[in-house]
């Protein structure tokens, strides 16, 4: 490959890497702030203005904690666990297209480089592969701890991730059928106009995918692997210092990546309404190169706005819903989501036969009608008058 393109790619890879880490770092701060605001509190505001230095202080604290390895733990696996978790979490942001292309000329040659670390035509498959590796980090770490709580948390994480990966994949197949490509960039380009965003063509798939993403990230309401009320700390009960930090950090990176993935798959990625008009106007006024780059930059900003909204949504849900019970979790995954997503694939395929993209609304409408009917037929809740003492 051309050395110029290679170095441009290198810069983009470093930027993506840095931004991922930075966002994960400030997600911890955002989580605490959002949690506080949702609970009528103020949240961290002592370290720096509005508490903005809080993540730095947290990291400093983490580094100075005693790095403890239990005597009965399997030492190397115990160290390997958090390393695997953070490695897989950091790998998955590589194929996400954060923007359109950047044009520049160097050495009297014109280049056009995509704002994406690696452009591969199997991006979706790559993310799936890496994400399913992520469970090994939790599994290995929890098992190596030689602690019943850790082991239980790890087993829960493994079974939960495996169960929900099926529904996740099946809900995605409908999109892949519509796009005909596994490349994330192709999927985003498919959603150029607003009403062709996959959230409008695949409403049911979106809800299934979103819920499964919550389960994959081990976030509330599906945070069974680390539920404090039952399992002390779950798979990271025995962890301290920066090893624990790596686990927590990988959770936030996963949250960022799945937010990016959701916005790319269902919300048009870097597309926004009237994008062509804005891009055309910019290229007319600033010239083909500068105008195109500015338009790309706006697209990147829009994409990050979508990502931040979903990160907020993850937190919003976390501080709203209570944790699911384990059997509820499994029932929801196996008995509801997998059949529904298979039905979704079938209906999408039937619609595509007639070149009709919005066929899955049929399922949504039928479900709404059924729900309304069943709640109308349900016996009215009788209010028992309570006598006072």
């Amino acid at each position: 490959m051309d050395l110029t393109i290679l170095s441009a790619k290198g810069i983009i890879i470093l930027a993506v890497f840095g931004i991922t880490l930075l966002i994960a770092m400030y997600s911890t701060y955002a989580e605490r702030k959002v949690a506080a605001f949702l609970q009528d509190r103020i949240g961290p505001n002592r370290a720096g203005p509005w508490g903005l230095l809080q993540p730095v202080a947290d990291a400093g604290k983490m580094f100075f904690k005693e790095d403890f390895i239990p005597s009965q733990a399997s030492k190397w696996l115990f160290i390997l666990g958090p390393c695997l978790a953070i490695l897989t979490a950091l790998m998955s942001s590589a194929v996400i297209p954060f923007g359109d292309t950047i044009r520049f000329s160097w050495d009297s040659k014109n280049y056009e480089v995509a704002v994406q670390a690696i452009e591969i035509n199997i991006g979706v498959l790559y993310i799936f592969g890496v994400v399913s590796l992520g469970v090994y980090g939790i599994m290995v770490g929890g098992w190596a701890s030689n602690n019943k709580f850790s082991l239980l948390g790890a087993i829960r994480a493994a079974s939960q991730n495996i169960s929900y990966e099926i529904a996740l994949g099946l809900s995605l197949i409908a999109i892949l059928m519509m796009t005909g490509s596994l490349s994330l960039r192709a999927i985003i380009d498919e959603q150029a106009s607003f009403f062709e965003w996959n959230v409008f063509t695949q409403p049911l798939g979106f809800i299934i995918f979103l819920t499964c993403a919550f389960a994959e990230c081990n976030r509330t309401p599906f945070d069974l692997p680390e539920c404090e009320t039952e399992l002390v700390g779950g798979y990271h009960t025995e962890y301290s210092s920066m090893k624990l930090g790596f686990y927590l950090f990988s959770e936030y990176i996963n949250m960022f990546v799945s937010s990016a993935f959701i916005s790319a798959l269902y919300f048009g990625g870097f597309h926004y309404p009237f994008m062509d008009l804005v891009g055309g106007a910019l290229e007319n006024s600033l010239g083909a190169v500068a105008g195109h780059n500015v338009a790309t930059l706006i697209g990147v900003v829009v994409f990050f706005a979508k990502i931040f909204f979903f990160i907020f949504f993850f937190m919003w849900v976390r501080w709203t819903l209570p944790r699911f019970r384990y059997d509820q979790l499994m029932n929801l995954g196996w008995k509801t989501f997998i059949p529904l997503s298979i039905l979704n694939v079938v209906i999408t395929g039937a619609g595509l036969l007639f070149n009709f993209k919005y066929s899955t609304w049929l399922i949504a409408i039928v479900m709404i009608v059924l729900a309304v009917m069943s709640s109308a037929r349900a016996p009215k809740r009788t209010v028992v008058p309570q006598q006072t003492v």
Partner: protein
Amino acid sequence: MQLTNRSKQVSNKEMTLAEKMYLPAVIGGLAITIRHFFRKKPTIQYPEVKKYLGPIYRGHHVLKRDEQGRERCTACGLCAVACPAEAISMVAAERKKGEESLYREEKYAAVYEINMLRCIFCGLCEEACPKQAVYLRHDRMVPVFQERDEVIYGKDRLVEKMDDRYVRIASSEVQATPTEPSLTRAAT
């Protein structure tokens, strides 16, 4: 036995499809929490902003002087007897000739000490005092101490200063936060 009216009847009835789908309930919950997100926070940023704690708050002890500036305490020891934490100790002395402007009656406390580590700020000394000599200020707290030798407060820190007289005021008259020194002076 039912104690309150707020208990909710629970039932094991089958959920309807809408309830099984969770989504209406989830959206309802999200709506509730987002309303709290934009609500005004009731937090008081403590060290910077201090709340008025009322005219009956029991804070720093003060040994009152009377209108002419004479110490009211006669070292009767009733406060020390009343004190459940045994924080108060004193040494009585007889007033000499020429000290009439210092002490109101013939007997006075030469030494009056309160151990602030023992004190539980119950205010029983204030109730026990027959001479209205000891009060717990409502407008000032005992400052934080780090050393053990700081914890016993003698007369130098307990007797009311003439330029910083303490008057207990009704809550309706209070305007500012009590820790501001301007308030106590204005009320005197």
